[in-house]
């Protein structure tokens, strides 16, 4: 007997959706037979506006591309500008940038803990981790002056040097977090129900994964060691000692495991940065931004964010405004074609969990 398919809309107003987007589902019983995403609720025309701003003014817009983790976007843009202009970055600035990127990664993973566990109804881990994320935001506040939107990584370096006693604060926070991470593990990764809900759900095919454009933790969760930090190293990542964790399986569980290990690797990187940071200049000053024109050319800079590869294609026509700044977020692939593909055949109850495990971030799709 064939059941009649119901159409079910998840979003834009829905507690299970990450951000502001919509998934239109055709459901037979509890099984999804067809999924279509609809985005555009957050389209602010950033790329159009950047064409009207000068090279530095764009930073107010850049950090709003992806709200949970704005720094990789700034980093990509700054690096693309440096590539076009050939501007040197002081060594100290490179270390600070890595520190900021890794702090942002930890903060974003803590938010992910909240999303992933919350999507399965385990709110306690989310409450803990999002609460502890405030300590990371405190560090950002001390360093950059803002909690969420930092605008800290600039072409030619970073905007400010470390405040007094910042290194110790960072190390203290890392010590605290390492202790707390064990608590999260007890509640989340040792939880039989969590395993039951995540194992074998939302499986990405390993053979097809690269072709499908899967990047970041989902790809590493399929057993493919791919990370821009080691494949296409930027800043000082080639000098650092860290492991890119890989798990075989390709389901929500392995993606979660990958993230769980990565947050520890980030803490390791931060400790190394604090130990090895050289002195000296932190900013290779750009000229008056109102008159600062870049030479003609284009560049594409990629950065490893928590969601995977984010990149900025920048084209300059020799004027003081960017000709084109085209941002590519990991969610641009993950949350549309991949999500539509993955959801088919899954249980309706797992939609939110799958979306969270892919790191869906609508603002970076729509920009």
């Amino acid at each position, binding site marked *: 007997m064939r059941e009649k398919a119901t159409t079910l809309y998840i979003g834009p*107003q829905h507690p299970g959706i990450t951000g*502001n987007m919509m998934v239109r589902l055709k459901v037979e019983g509890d099984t999804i037979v067809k999924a279509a995403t609809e985005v555009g*609720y*957050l*389209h*602010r*025309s950033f790329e159009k506006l950047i064409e009207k701003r000068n090279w530095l003014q764009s930073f107010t*817009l850049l950090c709003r591309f992806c709200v949970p983790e704005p720094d990789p976007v700034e980093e990509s843009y700054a690096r693309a500008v440096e590539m076009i202009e050939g501007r040197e970055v002081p060594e100290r600035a490179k270390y600070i940038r890595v520190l900021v990127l890794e702090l942002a990664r930890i903060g974003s993973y803590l938010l992910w803990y909240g999303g992933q566990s919350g999507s399965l109804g385990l709110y306690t881990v989310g409450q*803990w981790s999002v609460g502890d994320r405030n300590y990371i935001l405190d560090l950002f506040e001390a360093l950059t002056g803002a909690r969420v939107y930092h605008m800290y990584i600039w072409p030619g370096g970073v905007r400010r040097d470390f405040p007094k006693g910042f290194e110790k604060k960072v190390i203290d926070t890392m010590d605290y977090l390492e202790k707390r991470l064990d608590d999260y593990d007890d509640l989340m990764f040792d939880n039989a129900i969590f395993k039951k809900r995540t194992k074998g759900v939302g499986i990405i095919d390993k053979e097809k994964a690269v072709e499908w454009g899967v990047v970041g933790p989902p790809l590493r969760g399929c057993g493919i060691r791919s990370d821009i930090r080691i494949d296409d190293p930027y800043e000082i990542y080639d000098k650092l000692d860290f492991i890119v964790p890989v798990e075989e399986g390709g389901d929500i569980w392995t993606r979660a495991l990958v993230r769980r290990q990565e947050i520890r690797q980030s803490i390791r990187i931060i400790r190394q940065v604090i130990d090895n940071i050289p002195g000296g200049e932190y900013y290779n000053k750009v000229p008056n931004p109102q008159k600062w024109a870049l030479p003609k050319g284009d560049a594409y800079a990629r950065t490893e964010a928590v969601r995977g590869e984010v990149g900025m294609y920048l084209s300059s026509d020799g004027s003081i405004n960017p000709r084109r700044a085209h941002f590519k977020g990991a969610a641009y692939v993950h949350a549309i074609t991949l999500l539509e593909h993955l959801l088919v055949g899954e249980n309706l109850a797992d939609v939110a969990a799958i979306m969270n495990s892919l790191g869906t971030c609508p603002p970076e799709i729509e920009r």
Partner: protein
Amino acid sequence: MINDKNSQKIVDIIRNYARKHSLWILAYGTGCGAIELPPTMTSRYDAERLGVRGAATPRQADLLLITGYLTTKSLKRVIRVYEQMQDPKYVIGFGSCTINGGMYWDSYNTIKALDRYLPVDVYINGCMPRPEAVLSGFAKLQELIQDGKANGAKEYKENLKWYRDNQKKVITNWKMPEYNW
């Protein structure tokens, strides 16, 4: 007896007191301001102390947070959601982009002033408003509710035509059911 003016006053005070201490936010992250809501709800700031709590559907919610800019596509859904909410209902505009467009002043896809399209009770300025600012926004709304001044929904009903005209100016393809309160 119960419709007596003074007893109505007492009932109002009690009612407002309960309303003030039980604000259920609709879980609708319309913009980037939604990123500061998880910290507001969790341990350091803990908005649940004030009786603020999430509600899953518009039918159950009292408070609509417009967390930032609204694109025209979003605005259509927000209006629909707002009209589905039950009275008394309140709107908080979140961030400078709801006040005057903020950094999106020349964007072709975002509205610049929220109060032309929806009645706003409290604005919280800043981009992002910090959780402390959000909490103070809630406190301000509670004050207004206690004084009986949070009358956005009433104004919306009274000036529906003005709001509708503004909304229709932006939303070109107006295909929505009429407001059914």
